[in-house]
């Protein structure tokens, strides 16, 4: 990939993610928060594509942007009157949140930069066929040491349990 184009794309994505993340957590209207979340998730998908993880990016769009965001919208519609703004955040809470998040970011950033040379690692070109669907499919259903059959099955069971749990919990009694 062209490195300049890559960098420009990165900055667009970065600005989008930062702006929409901040908006997600600061907007007064909950439906808008969900929409901004959707933008963040889509931008994340672009990052995955940039990393050559086409499948992961597709899953991100399909499951996160397509599934979870819609689920949020449904839940919001079921529990909120449209257009009603959330109560304003108290300054005490805002102070708490700001200290927590800024302290977290600072500590993590410091930890990050204390490993300077690893952080400056640049992107190596992907090998041929490294991330194509055949490889992924084989790895997913492979029961050898490098395979993911067991977690795959475990997640399948978990999802089944979630379907049942979701039905049971939300069912009207």
């Amino acid at each position, binding site marked *: 990939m062209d490195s300049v184009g890559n960098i420009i794309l990165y900055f667009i994505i970065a600005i989008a993610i930062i702006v929409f993340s901040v908006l997600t957590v600061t907007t007064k209207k909950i439906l808008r928060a969900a929409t901004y979340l959707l933008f963040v998730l889509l931008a994340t998908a672009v990052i995955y594509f940039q990393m050559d993880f086409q499948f992961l990016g597709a899953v991100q769009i399909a499951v996160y942007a397509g599934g979870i965001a819609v689920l949020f919208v449904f839940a919001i519609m079921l529990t909120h009157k449209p257009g009603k703004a959330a109560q304003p955040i108290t300054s005490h*809470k805002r102070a*708490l949140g700001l200290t*927590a998040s800024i*302290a*977290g970011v600072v*500590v993590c950033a410091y*930890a990050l930069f*204390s490993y300077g040379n690893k952080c400056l690692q640049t992107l190596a070109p992907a090998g041929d066929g490294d991330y194509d669907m055949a490889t992924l499919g084989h790895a997913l259903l492979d029961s050898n040491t490098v395979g993911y059959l067991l977690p795959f099955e475990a997640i399948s069971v978990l999802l089944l349990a979630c379907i049942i749990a979701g039905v049971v919990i939300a069912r009207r009694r």
Partner: protein
Amino acid sequence: MSFDLSILVLAIPLFMFLFLGIVGVKMGKKATGWIGVASMLVTLVICYGIALTYFFQTPLVNGVHQTLIPYNWDWLSFTNKLVVRLGVLIDPISAMMLVVVSTVSFLVHLFSIGYMSDEVGKPEKGFQRYYSFLQLFTFSMLGLVVSTNIFQMFIFFEMVGVSSYLLIGFYYTSPAAIHASKKAFIVTRLADLFFLLGVIVMSYYTGTLDFFKDASHNVMASLLDNPQSTIAACTGSFMGCSAIAWSLTMIFIGGAGKSAMYPLHIWLPDAMEGPTPVSALIHAATMVVAGVFLVARMFPVYVLEPVVMNTILVVGAFTAFYAAAVACVQSDIKRALAFSTISQIAYMMTALAVSTSTTGEGSLGYMASQFHLFTHAMFKALLFLCAGSIIHCIGSNENSEMHGLHKYMPITSICFLIGCLAISGIPPFAGFFSKDEIIVACFHKNVGWGLWMMLVAGMTAFYMFRTYYLIFFWKKHETPAGKHQPHDMPWTMTLPLIILAVVSCVAGFVPAHDLVTANGAPLETHTEWPIAIGSICVALVGIGLATALYYKENGVPTRMKNACLGLWTAAYHRFYMDEFYQFITHKIIFQGICKPIAWFDRHIIDGFMNLLADGTNSLSYSIRKLQGGAVQSYVYVYLMGALAIAVVTMVCILI
């Protein structure tokens, strides 16, 4: 009759206990009663069949009645040697006891149909419960007498105690009955604790619980087949006495509790609060002789321990005299009979204790005690059932409300008279033969004991006839206003009386010395006429004295009472034994021991626990704000903690 049927003797009452107890409520009361009677009749027939087959059709081996064990199941196998078994054992004494228990039980079942109904024949409340408990008792008692090992005997010992408790407290609305039932249960249970200890000591040393070897059921060790080796096995000693002596003494204490030997007799007079047929069955004829039966069962071992035998002798002889003395002044007819029972059981114990060997002359006492057990069960049940008739008719136990009933209740009166003659030892009634042999056995031991027992026999005659005269003669009966005249009872109540009266007349001719002996072989006996005539004379003197004093109303008894008022009052209050126990338990044990322990428990132990609880409580109350349920503050604190750890880690790495 095959001995395989013997299991039915236990199975029928047990089944009927459950059946009447569970289904009885759904059935009518009358039906329940009659089903109980019918099932008892079946049991009776089987018991008689077993006993007759055993005594007269089973061939003797070397002239000895064999011990048969038709059933013997392993129930609890602790070790290879120590196995608790449940089974059926038939030997002379258990066969005799089967007859006694089933006879009295059947007649009591029949009698209770009338007794447990009111004037117009309507059964009382709890009728089904009553019959169910009677069946339970019969089951327990039959199980006790056919025990193949001492632990099975202990189990059934407890069960008769329980059924006795249930039946004494049958009128559970009356506080006196409840107190009496508790008293009976606690006293006998305390004694049974000693029994259990004795069993444990003995089984610890001998490694077996079984009475007899039983090759067909793989029982290779036993207590009684070779008593010398049993005694030799008990090598330990404690406080100067051997382990076997301790063990036998403790087993005797267990028996003494059930058989109301002094000083554990206090429960029996109070147990008269129960229905009178129950008193007849449990507290006169069967359960109270369980102690005698126990000592008789273990007799081959007991007889080799003279120390224990002498203890039993002293206890028995003293109890006989004490109970007879108390019985002379009681005004409650059931209490008088109860003390008479204590006295007569003490007779049996004494008779066992004066035996010196299992064969020949020395074993006369054993035979006499078992014979007396048999005859006593019959005539004492008769006396109690007569008393039951009278009480049912009059509605009171006090003889001051009776007097002169002979005219109104002739059948009861004659039956009671036969019972009195039998217990007094007048030939040809049953008591003469057995009691005479006991006195002979006592004379063989020692002339002093013989004279002592003869004196008690005279007192027995006196107090029985005193009771008899005060009930049936003394003065004209005054029917209280509003009550109808006393009369003989319906046939369900008179028929048992007549049967028992007939049995009391002829039971003396049962050839007990051929059947029930210590070693199973027939015993040569001959009436010792000097002693027999002596005891008859003593009995006649007692009867004559009672006749002179109580036949017609006169002032002599009152004058005699006033002449030695202190003695009379003491005897009337049973020589203050209950008060003595009350003092020991309440003043010394409760006040002196339990109160401080309770205080310690309440203030020190509980206080410490309360301190812990209060401390935890106040601490958690003061920090409860930390857990306010605000999820977000949890996250905040958690995040800050994680960051702090990260900072600390980084600082450590950098330094």
